[in-house]
């Protein structure tokens, strides 16, 4: 494995992403929505030291949960599949690079482009809040930024896995949207229904929620914001009391698993794939 080759592929992927109109759209959309949400969170509060990033963060959590997985999945899923469909992947792989280098390079390039898009959004949002005179909880806000990056990387990893499982861009995007729907909505709806129908215990409910990276992201940000998960009711209180100081490592470990495992699986799938 050559880091230099990976870097070259990553740079090419970053370059391609930056020329992609979807990148521009997502960057603008995320920036505008983040700014609007932070403004609305602060509007009329007049409570310096109590509002600020804490509430803004809570609002942004929702935005991130919806938009960032969609961004990540929709740019990662067609990356390999689209190149395979166009024939450029075969051409690329006919050169002296290994498949793992190509896959990792693409992943890193996409991660860099996503990081740029999110950093722009959060940066503008942060300046807007600072201009509004609110600065309490900047640490919480930065935690949100970092956790958003990691969530994005996890979703990119899933998107890359989807890309290795398909041969064309359109089915890849379709599958990505299905996965996005499942993660954002269907799994939570299912879990809610199960909690009521099967009388799931608090422990079971929390454990099942840990499977969903979006829930993990949300809980980690809220935990950092409030130093507990009380806001999430009995399950949150249980988590705070049962795991204590290990709660945050648990969340980080879960998200890291969502980065590493899909990427490892994607690598395995890609290494065995016929590039026609």
């Amino acid at each position, binding site marked *: 494995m050559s880091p230099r080759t990976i870097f070259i592929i990553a*740079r*090419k992927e970053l*370059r391609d992403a*930056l*020329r992609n109109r979807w990148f521009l759209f997502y960057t603008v959309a995320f920036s505008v929505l983040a700014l609007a949400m932070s403004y609305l*969170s602060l509007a*009329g*509060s007049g*409570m*310096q*030291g*109590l509002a600020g*990033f*804490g*509430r803004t963060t*809570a609002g942004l*959590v*929702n935005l991130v949960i*919806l938009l960032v997985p969609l961004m990540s999945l929709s740019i990662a899923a067609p990356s390999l599949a689209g190149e395979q469909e*166009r*024939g*450029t992947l*075969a051409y690329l*792989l*006919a*050169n*002296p*690079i290994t498949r793992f280098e190509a896959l990792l390079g693409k992943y890193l390039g996409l991660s*860099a*482009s996503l*990081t*740029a898009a999110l*950093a*722009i959004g*959060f*940066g*503008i949002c*942060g*300046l807007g809040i*600072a201009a509004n005179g*609110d*600065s*309490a909880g*900047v640490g919480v806000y930065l935690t949100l930024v970092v956790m958003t990056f990691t969530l994005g990387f996890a979703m990119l990893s899933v998107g890359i896995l989807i890309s290795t499982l398909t041969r064309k861009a359109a089915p890849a995007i379709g599958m990505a949207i299905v996965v996005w729907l499942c993660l*954002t909505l269907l799994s939570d*709806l299912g*879990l*809610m229904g199960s909690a009521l129908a099967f009388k799931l215990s608090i422990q079971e*409910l929390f454990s099942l929620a840990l499977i969903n990276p979006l*829930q993990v992201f949300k809980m980690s940000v809220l935990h950092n914001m409030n130093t*507990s998960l*009380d*806001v999430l*009711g*009995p*399950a949150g*209180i249980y988590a705070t009391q049962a795991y204590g100081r290990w709660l945050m490592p648990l969340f980080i470990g879960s998200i890291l698993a969502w980065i590493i495992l899909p990427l490892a699986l994607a690598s395995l799938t890609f290494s065995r794939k*016929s*590039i*026609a």
Partner: protein
Amino acid sequence: MLGLLLAIWGVAGLCASSVDGGSFDLQAAVDNAESGTTIHVPAGTYPGPLVINQSVILVADPGTIIQGDGQGDVVQVHAPDVTLRGFTIRGTGKSLDRENAGVTVLAPRVLIEDNDFEDVLFGIYLKKAHDSVIRNNRIGGKDLPLPRRGDGIRLWYSPNSLVEQNTVSNSRDVVIWFSNNTTIRDNTVTHGRYGLHFMYCDDTVLIGNHLEGNSVGAFLMYSRRLVIKDNRFIRNHGPSGYGVGLKEVDGVDSENNLFAGNRIGIYFDNSPASVDMVQHFTSNVVAYNDIGLAFMPSIERNVFTDNNFIENVEQVAVLGSGKLKKNRFTVDGRGNYWSDYTGFDLDGDGIGDISYKAQSLFENLMDREPKLRLFLFSPVQQAVELAAKAVPTFRPPVKITDEAPLMQPVAVTISVGSEPPAWPTTTASLVLLLSASGLLMCGMTGTLARPSADASLVSMTPQAHTDQPEEATKPILSAQRITKRFGRLTAVKELDLRLRPGEAVALWGPNGAGKTTALRCMLGLIRCKGAVSINGFDVRRQPKKAKRCVGYVPQELAFYDDWRARELLGFFAKIKRIGRDRVSAVLAEVGLTEHASKYVGELSGGMKQRLALAAAMLADPPVLMLDELTANLDAAARESFLNLLCRQRDIGKAIVFTSHRLREVETLADRVLVMERGEVVTTCEPRKLAEVLGLKSSLRLWIEMDRLDDAVSQLRTEGFEADRNGKTVSVKVRPDEKGKPLDALLAAGIGVRDFEIDSNESGSQGRRVEQGGKR
């Protein structure tokens, strides 16, 4: 002189031992003092317990410590009208049963002020000590788990007392029980369980207290006529987590308080309890709590006006089933400010023209099933709300209605704290934007177009390629028994190929014969059975080294169309670790120098083909693989391209290519592998390919009408398959003998006005049409 000094200290001649307070005996001084005497206690550490049985005024010098023995109370006050001022009191026992306290007061009218309490289980404990004052003490609990701590301040049957300006931290509770007419003013209680815990304390006043970071701010129970004013209940977030909990209290008058960041701002349980009581909540700020107001379903007769309800996750909750009623949120046409109000104010009177209604399906679900709060801040929350709005059946009952919501928050006079500086936010945001700019620059700069020159890597021609004598006997590409199946279809079956330097081999066959698949197997793009080595490197085990020796031109020219030609070659040069000079060289070699700045998408098919060849030749590899090498070229370009490849072959490149075209094969190849259904059916020299395959071309000849039959006869006599076809003659010939029928007719004196070639070069394997010229 000594007597004068002792007189100054208030007590003359009282000399006894102390820990390090010199000769002053505090206990003896107290015991021997007359009622009402003021005793100034010199600095030093005095042993506890100190038992005060006289109504004395004890005033301590700074640094005066009463050190308990860790076994019980430190100070016990048994006499009324005692004052204890300015001491540091520490070292109680740990017995919760015996309620070990820093100061235990068992008599009325006691003043305890300006003392520091350290390492105490209970701080100040008034038992039946009415009309007492606890003022400006600082009380820190023992470092114990919360349930094992004692209360910072406890009033027990001590009515008419005043507790003010005290600071209590890390204790369990501040308890005020059975103590009517008590005033709790300007105290700060942090990091305990109950900031204030009231029971049976009628006519009590809470003013200006700051209760922060406790499990519960204040829990007020079984009391009547309570005034709660100017207090701050902040971030009380334990399992109950109430800013203020009201349980069976009557007649609360709450004004100008801040309830912020608690789990529940104000909790109502059977309050007011009496049917004739009404409670008023005016000009309070209830903000940023998980739940602003939480009611048990039976709660009635609470009146809310001019309050600010700001950004509570759930503004109003009804805990349990049942409908909330008879609580008023509007009085005399004036309601409260709700930050989530979405109405309007057309007449500009500051009052919303439509009422505010707290109505949410998800909140209802949470109120009934608290564990569903786990899904707060999730998209599923919005989905549920959307469903409730779209389908009336799902619409939940309205929890409360404010008929006259305020459009702007009510101005309040609550001091929250100093505003933090804005620079960390600005700095963090600028760092984020700078990082993004760096990434954008990294992606946008033209570094791809300017690959780094690395002189040592300019030519990647493997050593084996330059070693001609050895190469003459050793194959540079070796494929052994390559087999590839797609399901039941065998695309390539046991293909063997050995290619030597300077040799060109053609894979010939119709569409679907397996030519492209065979090439991709050799490149390692497709997993297959068999073994492939290039320049001695196994394609599967050493893919990078093997592919470094190959230049590949695919059938379908798939490039990044939004790149410029030079940029594209620069990218591949970097991957192949070739210096930038080589890019210009290969561009010149394939005749694309003047098109180097064009976007790939702007190039013609022929130019793209040449660009592909340029990319393939970048590393000067010993092997070229070309799939349908002239598929995108016109006749002139085809010739030029073939000449280019012939030169490459002649300088020692090994070439393997696929083609349909006999002419290409005859021009370039040294050997032809004829494939059919994935299998090599024969191998031959190119000039014998037509014969081997039995290829025939069909000529159509235009001859004078009266000589048509003669021509047919003459051609048949010469051994050609000839037939009359309307006004023309059709002749079948070998592809390399198309001139012979013309020669035969000319020799027989039969003129040919015109001719056309219908070529069937692939024989039974396929059909192609070539247009010939006219003569």
